[in-house]
């Protein structure tokens, strides 16, 4: 498994799961927080990579 996007997804899912279980109590709150965190991880990572694409290093 060397696909960077898949690795980023695995990382995001595991990290978001732990943080949502630490930060929230109810299932509904945890689900919302998990999805928000996961979305933020994925969208911001893709955005950052897109912004860095023209850099020569």
């Amino acid at each position, binding site marked *: 498994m060397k696909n960077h996007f898949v690795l980023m997804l695995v990382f995001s899912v595991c*990290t978001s799961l*732990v*943080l949502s*279980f630490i930060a929230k109590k109810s299932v509904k709150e945890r689900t919302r927080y998990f999805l928000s965190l996961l979305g933020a991880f994925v969208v911001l990572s893709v955005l950052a990579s897109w912004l860095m694409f023209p850099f020569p290093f």
Partner: protein
Amino acid sequence: MKMQREPTAEVRNQAESAADISPRTVGVCIAGALIPGLGHAILGKWDRALVFLFSIACLFGMGLYLQGTLFSPAIQTVTALLKFFADAGAGLFYWIALLGGLGKGNPTSYTYDYANVFLYVAGLLNMLVVMDVFDIAMGRKQ
């Protein structure tokens, strides 16, 4: 003349709760630091325990699989010290892997940087998990 201020209610509460740390609280924190989620399991929080164990084991295992480096306690620089602390936060996973000869790392690997981030984050998340179990054991959180 120097006026001595009365301690605020918050400071008093902190001092009182520091005195209330029981051996059981220390025990669950140590258990959680050694094996992610074990502290929560001892306190009966099985859902959290399983999620923490699965997620941190997954991150740590992926870090090793992707050829990341486990930084040993033989510290050369400040950054190496910080990396060691981050890695060692994973508890027994770190020590078993290190003593088992895993985590040599391959800097030429395509996924080396990713792998190191997986290993650091596994350790750092376990530190957060230990703080969470401390709060639960102290009755500050359910």
